[in-house]
């Protein structure tokens, strides 16, 4: 028997093992993982950028084709983060291999780091691929690149965490796709991904402000063009709050064993 590693403080091998395992699955299907968003982005550009965008004026001083890039990236980031985050933990529940995770010397925080870290990494990679694809269609100037990357990572982590919670909550594959399909996608479309919420009539604009995704897309667009529908500080604060609420939910889940343990 080899000597005992010190796992009393932090099980780094455990985190790395989950991360590596999850990333391997992504890389194994890299072809389709990458092809899908590239194709979708190109289609959006053809439809919104060229077909419709050509007839539209600039929005906030930005050509329409370029205006939709941040929203489009976010559309993918939010959807992919949730589905990656939820699938990673739902699948072991579905196949029964979750027993291993539950009996391993690994804490909730470490588990989340492994799964959510991998899910967020995949989303960020896809986000960057979409960004690269969009440069084939429009001229892009990113005003605040560091903030853009930081925000991309924060958003991916937040929604991967939300996905992780969905994966623990879900009892079926239908429930698994419920949140991304019926909540996140509509909210993203209504969250100003393809328009500025300023063009909405009064009451609709007010209602839109209750949609958390408005703040995310708005802040992300600010990173590109320096203009936003709502204050950048408010956006950052909202996203960070969202992330912390997610962490609190996860720690509650592991403490009570909700839908994991008897």
């Amino acid at each position, binding site marked *: *028997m080899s000597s005992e590693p010190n796992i009393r403080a932090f099980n780094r091998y455990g985190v*790395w093992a989950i991360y590596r*395992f999850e990333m391997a*699955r992504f890389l194994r299907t890299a072809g389709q993982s990458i092809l899908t968003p590239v194709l979708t982005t190109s289609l959006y550009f053809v439809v919104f950028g060229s077909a419709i965008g050509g007839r539209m004026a600039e929005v906030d001083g930005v050509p329409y084709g370029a205006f939709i890039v941040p929203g489009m990236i976010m559309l993918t980031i939010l959807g992919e983060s949730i589905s990656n985050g939820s699938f990673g933990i739902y699948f072991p529940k579905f196949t029964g291999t979750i027993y291993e995770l539950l*009996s391993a010397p690994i804490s909730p925080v470490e588990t989340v780091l492994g799964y959510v870290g991998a899910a967020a990494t995949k989303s960020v990679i896809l986000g960057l691929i979409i960004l690269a694809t969009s440069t084939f269609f429009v001229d892009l100037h990113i005003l605040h690149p560091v903030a853009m990357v930081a925000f991309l990572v924060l958003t991916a982590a937040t929604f991967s965490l939300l996905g992780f919670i969905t994966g623990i909550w879900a009892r079926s594959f239908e429930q698994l796709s419920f949140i991304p399909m019926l909540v996140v996608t509509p909210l993203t479309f209504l969250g100003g991904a393809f328009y500025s919420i300023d063009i909405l009539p009064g009451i609709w604009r007010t209602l839109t402000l209750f949609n958390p995704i408005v703040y995310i897309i708005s802040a992300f667009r600010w990173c590109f063009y320096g203009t936003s529908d709502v204050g950048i500080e408010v956006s950052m604060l909202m996203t960070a709050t969202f992330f912390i609420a997610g962490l609190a939910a996860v720690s509650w889940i592991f403490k009570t064993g909700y839908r994991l343990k008897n």
Partner: protein
Amino acid sequence: MSPIISISNVSKTYASGLQALKRIDLEINKGEIFALLGPNGAGKSTLINIVCGIVTPSTGTVVADGHDIMKDYRQARFKIGLVPQELATDAFETVETSVRLSRGLFGRRTDPNQIEKVLRSLTLWERRGDKIMTLSGGMKRRVMIAKALAHEPTILFLDEPTAGVDVELRRDMWNLVRELRAQGVTIILTTHYIEEAEEMADRVGVIHKGELILVENKSALMHKLGKKQLTLQLQEPLKALPSELSEWKLELKGDGYVLEYTYDGKAERTGIPSLLRRMTDIGILFKDLNTHQSSLEDIFVSLVSERQ
């Protein structure tokens, strides 16, 4: 021998109200093979799952290799490997990827040599690059054992290791368990086959309806459980047992048509040939016979009724 696992006052009532375990106290000695014997639904898996951290006990404490499984769960779980009853595998992953994940999860650095050693010991080395879903049921079970051993645990739980397993694999499994014991690993296995407990265990615990009704050395238990019965269907009914047969433990049943002889199945001399000879000598003829070993169910019934 010092205990490596101490289970004190552990009970479990599920949210559904089902009381799966009633105040279990049990000590497992270091280096032994302990068999937990009981029918389905007796609470065997619940007990194992509590020690491994999958089920939270309602009351009681468990100390594994000096570490409380709740307060010091990392150190406790690091010592433990679990092979659950259900076949659950990462179907789309390769054998090697899956085993490597297990080693990491349990806090060990990736070590290709160790992974190779485990895979070879389970004759999985040649199949290491295959997706688990392409393997047979027996091979999948080996993968689950490899996963449990990947982090070099000192305590191994095998929950029904040979349920639905072919004879060859069962032999292999038994050999593997012996090898592990020789390396100093303590093994706790559950089974509802008496023969398995008999073949493998140093000590046996019998669990019934959530209660540990007996813990004994195997040899003592096997003696207790080793009773067999010979049933003879007679051609002509007997009114009473003839005095010539008084030296055998006989009972007359079925309106005098059935003669039942209870004997020790483990004894060198069962007394059957001499009984049959004596019967022929005194002219008692039979048309059919069968022998029957007390089933686990019978034993439970007798153990439980003894307690009441």
